[in-house]
C-alpha cells in the first residue's frame, strides 16, 4: 500500500464518517415515532347504568391529545349480551372507524347494522363484516369499570373471529398469515 493510497482511503473514510454523523441522527429523528408508544389513556364516558345490552350508545372521547376537536373519536358502547354468548359483566366499545379506509360508520338502529357512507361497507351488530369492501370487523376499545364508571382505553383490532390483536390501520387484514404481511406496530398497545 502506497502512502498516497493510505491518505486517499483515510480521507474518504473520514468524509464518510462525517456524512454519517449528520445523516444518521437526522434519519433516526424522523423515524423515531415508529418505535415510540405514547402513554396509555383512559377516559370516563359515563356510569355503567347508562349502557344496555341490546343496543349501542354513542360516546365521544379524546383519542389524540393536542389537536383539539380533531383528536376526538366516537365509540358505540353497550354491555355484553348473554344471547350473543358474551359476558354480561363486560362493556363492549366498538370504534366507528371503518375498516376499509377509515371513514366514520354509523349504527343504524332499524337495521341493527353499522353502515359506512363512503363506499358502502356494512357490519352486523357485533361489528363483523356483512358486505362491501371492509377487510376485517370494526376495531374496538379496551374498557374497564372504576367506581361504577365506564372507562375507555386504547384501541385494538379483531380478527374475523373477534379475537383481539394489536390495533391495525384501516385497510389492513388481520388473522392468519396477514399477521405477518401487516405486522403489528410498536406504537400500538398490546390487546387485552
Amino acid at each position, binding site marked *: 500500500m502506497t502512502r498516497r493510497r493510505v491518505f486517499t482511503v483515510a480521507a474518504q473514510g473520514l468524509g464518510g464518517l462525517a456524512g454519517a454523523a449528520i445523516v444518521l441522527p437526522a434519519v433516526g429523528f424522523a423515524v423515531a415515532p*415508529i418505535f415510540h408508544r405514547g402513554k396509555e389513556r383512559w377516559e370516563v364516558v359515563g356510569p355503567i347504568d347508562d349502557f344496555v345490552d341490546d343496543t349501542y350508545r354513542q360516546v365521544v372521547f379524546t383519542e389524540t391529545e393536542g389537536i383539539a376537536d380533531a383528536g376526538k373519536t366516537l365509540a358505540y358502547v353497550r354491555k355484553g349480551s348473554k344471547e350473543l354468548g358474551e359476558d354480561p359483566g363486560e362493556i363492549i366499545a366498538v370504534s366507528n372507524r371503518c375498516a376499509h379506509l*377509515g371513514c366514520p360508520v354509523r349504527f343504524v338502529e332499524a337495521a341493527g347494522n353499522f353502515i359506512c357512507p363512503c363506499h358502502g361497507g356494512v357490519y352486523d351488530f357485533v361489528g363483523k363484516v356483512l358486505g362491501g369492501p371492509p377487510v376485517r370487523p370494526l376495531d374496538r376499545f379496551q374498557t374497564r369499570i372504576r367506581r361504577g364508571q365506564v372507562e375507555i382505553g386504547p384501541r385494538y383490532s379483531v380478527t374475523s373471529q373477534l379475537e383481539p390483536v394489536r390495533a391495525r390501520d384501516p*385497510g*389492513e387484514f388481520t388473522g392468519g398469515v396477514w399477521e405477518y404481511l401487516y405486522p403489528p*406496530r410498536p406504537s*400500538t398497545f398490546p390487546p387485552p
Partner: protein
Amino acid sequence: MKLDSLIPAPLRKPAKPGSGNGVAKPAPSDLKTAPPERPSEGQQMLDRAKEAPADVLAWVDQRTAASGFLTGMLYRKVPKGTNWFYTLGSATLFAFIVQAVTGVFLAMFYVPSATEAYASISHINNEVFLGQFVHGMHKWGASVMVILIFLHMGRTFFFGAYKYPRELNWVIGVVLLILTMTMAFTGYLLPFDQRSFWASIVGININGTGPVVGPYLSDFLRAGPELGATTLARFYAIHMLLIPGALIALIGAHMYLVVKLGTTAPPWVRAQRPKVAASVSQLDAGANGGGNGRAR
C-alpha cells in the same frame, strides 16, 4: 439591430454562414488622400455610454465565461416540426415557479400548528390583502401543475421522445411526477379543515395497505399511531423543505439533459437525407455519365 448593441458580442446570435458581419461597405474612392474620420468629443462620450450595458455584461462574461454556455443553450437548433405540444414541459416548469413563489408568500402568514392552522388560513383568505387570490393561485395551481405533467408525459410518450438516448430523462421525469404527487398529498393537509383532515387519513391508510412496510410507513407519515399535531408539522416540513429541494435539483438535471440531448422531431416528420449526399448522387447520374464508382 439597435438591441444588438446592448448584448456583448459573444452573446449575440451567430450570423448565418455567408451572410457577412454587416460591416461590408464600399471603400471611399479617395481612401488614400481623405483625412481620417474622427468623431467629435461628444460623439465619443455618447458612443461609450451606449456601450456601457455591453461592457458590464462583458465584465461578467470575462470572469465566468458563461457566454459560450448561454449561446449554446439559447440558440440551440430545434428539429423541423417542433410545435405547441413542445411547450408543455416549459408550462409545467412555469406552474412549478408559480407554486414556489406563491408558497413562499403563503408561508409568511401560515402557522403550521394543529390548533392555529385553520385560523391562519381563514385569516389569509378573509383579511390579508389579495390573500384569497394568492392562496387560490397556490391551490388551483397545484391541480394545473399535475394536469400539465400528465399532458407533458403524454406528449413525450406518444412522440416516442422517451427512446434512446433519452431514457434517463424519462426516469427523472417519473421521479419528478412522484415528488409532485407527494407535494400535492402533503399540501392537502395544511389547511387542516374537515376535508383535508379526512383526505389525509384516507391517503395514509392507503399507504398502510402496502404489505410488510405499509404499517410502518403509515406510522412514519403520521409520526405516531394516530394523525396528530406532529403529523401537521411533519407534512409541512416535507411540503416546503424536503421535496422542493429535491424537485429543484431534479428539474435542473431534467433540463440539462433536454439541452444536452436536444429535442426530437414529431413522429410524422421524416428524416431527410443530408444535402451533400443528394448532390453527389446527382453528380454521379449526370456529369459523370453514369458514374465511375469512385465519385462516392
